């Protein structure tokens, strides 16, 4: 039905034209879900935008054919192309929060779209809209249709978005990361919906995603892309089960499996870490292990435990009415857990579960309402009562989620890395500080000359390495990693996870590893805690939890996470 041949898209820039995608060939049949998978920069979204004719200016199609049935999409003029959008091709965007016009009711948006393409009365359009919403799983649609977008929850909103894409019965729908912004449970519902629409209505889907698990779950055929080129294409089971191309194999093996634990990830050779082998991190390694400057009690072991007792965090709600007092939002409801010295504790939960609140409370950014925290044998003062010079500020370090915002973009890497050294008074001599920083870069697998560059000169994975180096330069004994890989591509994720594992075993760090990704936690953590709405659902040894989950919620989470069939994983 859709045939893309030799598609090439270029973007003019001040350095001349750059090629975003080149020689792309894709076929999509009616009722087929065609997965388009690749890491960031692969050009998969550009393919979708080119097909629907909404390339970001100033991008243009320089070569190739796009045929939808008998229609040559490249031959259409502006008005014809616009009339075809919605009528024959439609699109679903990533974030349901921003995809709907906030000032129009769902009804207005649906009816408007239907009337734009079909000759019928407004009443007929409304009837069709209501039927469609019912079909898509919105209960009481006749009433709900009168609501504004902000009155729907995230998952429901994505259903409304799908209804809008569907309301004119298009032949092809391009879904660009349709579930990336959603929680696991909602994601699986939306994926089921897409599958059933393809089967029942014979709609062809192009499903663009970075998540190989999603592809494995619902795609019939898959095209793997890298750097604007097609690497491999074919039946999903064949491409993912018996990959021909080395990149596909590497990509597959970088995906952390959920059903068993592996020691190390094999990493596709993506980013060349040039020179890393020439330099060694010996100096930094020695420095981290040496004991002479440490106080007596710290000398015994480098790691330290943390125990949390009945920690309770509430935020005052926003006032909406003059008469009612705002209700407190309970972020953490008297939670207790214990991180053993030298172990990795995994903290798992969906968005809004309170897992980041835990990190912020331990680091003192949030003052809890009640509860105690013990770092080793000493009470860890909470929130504002923790002095700026408190020892825990050095002992506890953090690696953040977003490497693009966790490094000050106006400071050189050198000054970012030496800051903890002088700030905590660990090294008085400025030259030694530079040497240590450079050596630490080598230890985390970066070329030490990075020290004179700025953060924007590095990729996400490299920045995350720098962030790890910064944390280590405080000589921490307790490391909090808050979703350290969720902003990264899967191959980079594998590198960072390997790095964290290595460092942990070398220096015996205690790590609190926060993530929404169950398979990552299985690979990393010794113990784990499952958090939902500020309550601990289940806690215990990681292997036990995965093999014999007790709580209903844990079971549900495990069953809903998309996984690859066992025999596919390498």
């Amino acid at each position, binding site marked *: 039905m859709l045939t893309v041949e030799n598609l090439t898209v270029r973007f003019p820039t001040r350095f001349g034209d750059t090629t975003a995608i080149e020689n792309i060939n894709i076929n999509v049949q009616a009722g087929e879900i065609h997965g388009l998978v690749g890491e960031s920069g692969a050009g998969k979204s550009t393919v979708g935008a080119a097909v629907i004719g909404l390339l970001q200016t100033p991008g243009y199609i320089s070569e190739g054919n796009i045929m939808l049935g008998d229609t040559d999409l490249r031959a259409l003029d502006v008005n014809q192309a616009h009339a075809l959008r919605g009528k024959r091709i*439609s699109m679903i965007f990533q974030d349901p929060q921003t995809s709907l016009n906030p000032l129009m009711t769902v009804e207005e948006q649906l009816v*408007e779209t239907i009337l734009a393409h079909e000759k019928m009365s407004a009443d007929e359009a409304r009837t069709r809209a209501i039927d469609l919403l019912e079909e898509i799983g919105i209960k009481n649609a006749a009433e709900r249709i009168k609501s504004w977008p902000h009155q729907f929850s995230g998952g429901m909103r994505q259903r409304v978005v799908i209804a809008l894409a569907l309301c004119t019965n298009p032949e092809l729908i391009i879904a660009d990361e349709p579930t990336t912004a959603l929680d696991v449970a909602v994601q699986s519902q939306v994926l089921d919906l897409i599958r059933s629409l393809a089967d029942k209505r014979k709609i062809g889907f192009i499903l663009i995603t970075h998540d190989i698990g999603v592809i494995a779950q619902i795609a019939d055929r898959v095209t793997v892309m890298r750097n604007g080129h097609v690497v491999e294409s074919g039946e999903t089971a064949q491409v993912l089960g018996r990959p021909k191309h080395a990149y596909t194999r590497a990509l597959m093996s970088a995906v952390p499996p959920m059903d068993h634990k592996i020691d190390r990830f094999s990493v596709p050779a993506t980013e060349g870490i040039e020179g890393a082998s020439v330099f060694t991190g010996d100096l930094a390694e020695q420095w981290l292990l040496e004991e002479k400057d440490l106080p007596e009690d710290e000398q015994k072991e480098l790691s330290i435990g943390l125990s949390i007792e009945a920690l309770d965090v509430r935020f005052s709600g926003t006032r909406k009415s003059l008469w009612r007092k705002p209700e407190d939002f309970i972020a953490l409801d008297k939670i207790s857990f214990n991180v053993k010295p030298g172990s990795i504790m995994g903290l798992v939960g969906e968005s809004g579960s309170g897992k980041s609140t835990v990190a912020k409370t331990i680091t003192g950014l949030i003052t809890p309402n009640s509860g105690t925290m013990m770092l080793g044998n000493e009470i860890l003062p909470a929130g504002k009562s923790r002095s700026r010079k408190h020892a825990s500020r050095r002992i506890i370090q953090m690696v953040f989620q977003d490497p693009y915002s966790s490094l000050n973009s106006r400071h050189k890497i050198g000054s970012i890395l030496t800051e903890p050294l002088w700030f905590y008074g660990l090294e008085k001599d400025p030259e030694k500080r530079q040497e240590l920083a450079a050596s630490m870069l080598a230890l985390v697998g970066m070329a030490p000359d990075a020290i004179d560059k700025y953060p924007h000169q590095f990729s996400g994975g490299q920045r995350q390495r720098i962030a790890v180096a910064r944390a280590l330069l405080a000589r921490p004994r307790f490391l909090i990693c808050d979703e350290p890989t969720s902003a990264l591509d899967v191959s980079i994720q594998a590198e960072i996870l390997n790095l964290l594992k290595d460092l942990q075993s070398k220096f015996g760090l205690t790590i609190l590893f926060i993530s929404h990704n169950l398979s990552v936690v299985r690979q990393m953590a010794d113990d784990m805690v499952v958090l939902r709405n500020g309550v601990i659902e289940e806690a215990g040894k990681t292997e036990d939890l995965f093999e014999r989950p007790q709580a209903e919620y844990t079971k549900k989470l495990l069953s809903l996470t998309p996984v690859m069939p066992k025999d596919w994983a390498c």
Partner: protein
Amino acid sequence: MFYFIYKRLIQSVFVMLAVAFLAFSLFRFVGDPITQMTGVETSVVDQERLREELGLNDPFISQFGRFTVDMLQGDFGYSFRTRQPVAEMIASRIPATLELGVVALLISLVVGIPAGVYTALRPRGVITQTILMTTLIGISIPTFVIGIMLIFLFGVQLGWLPTFGRGETVNIGFWESSFFSIDGWRALILPAVTLGVYQLTLTMRLVRAQMMDVMRSDYIRFATARGVPMRQLYFRHALANTMVPVITIIGLQFGGVIAFSIVTESVFQWPGMGLLFLESIRFVDIPVMGVYLVVIAFFFVVVNLLVDLLYVAIDPRLRV
């Protein structure tokens, strides 16, 4: 929703109190009101008696309280310069300034919004570049220069329009209006255009910036991908979302219009509040200055409350 309005109301009262306080401090501390009120020949004893009578020896807070209560009752004190009640002086000038301001604001909206929309939708066209260049010059020419240029061109060289005063006015009750005679309208054109041009450029640039922001949003891209007709896309989806922030700023601009009318009124000898304020500054006529401030702040606060109501009408997210 009620809470939103209530919060804004509290804020407004707070702003008014603060401005009243400013006006009172002016009156009380800038120069000695007694020396200002009395002549050189008044004896010290008489001065003291007057001071006591006027309650100027009372504690500061009770003086301010009395000042505020008086103001609420419409008693704004007397001008140092003319010895007339300030309330009357200002009240007689309000119609002239308000009519000028409203016409100027209308000019700025009627021209500025369409121009902003056009330049946002056709960012690369020749017309857009011309409009942008013109508005850049527009915000760079001081209002008084625009006034002088208009006077020079239409008043002096062409002789088409009057260059000072309000022309013929019609009294409707206490309200002295220029709207009901051709002569009045003729006199209004040049000052209103002068005052409107600067606001127009601001409005246009703001609408353009917001509209371009909105055009890049996900919901516009999604609406484009569903083939919503362009006309609806621009005017139903994009413009409505553009107006949400723009309305707030237009509310703020009204204050600017009234304030900039000081300059326009001075250039065109337009007998409004601004001219009165300028005179009172020259003669350090503190009571008039103070009351002018309070009146301006009052207009500002009222307009912004109306804007908030409009805001609620447009944006369903506030109607919870």
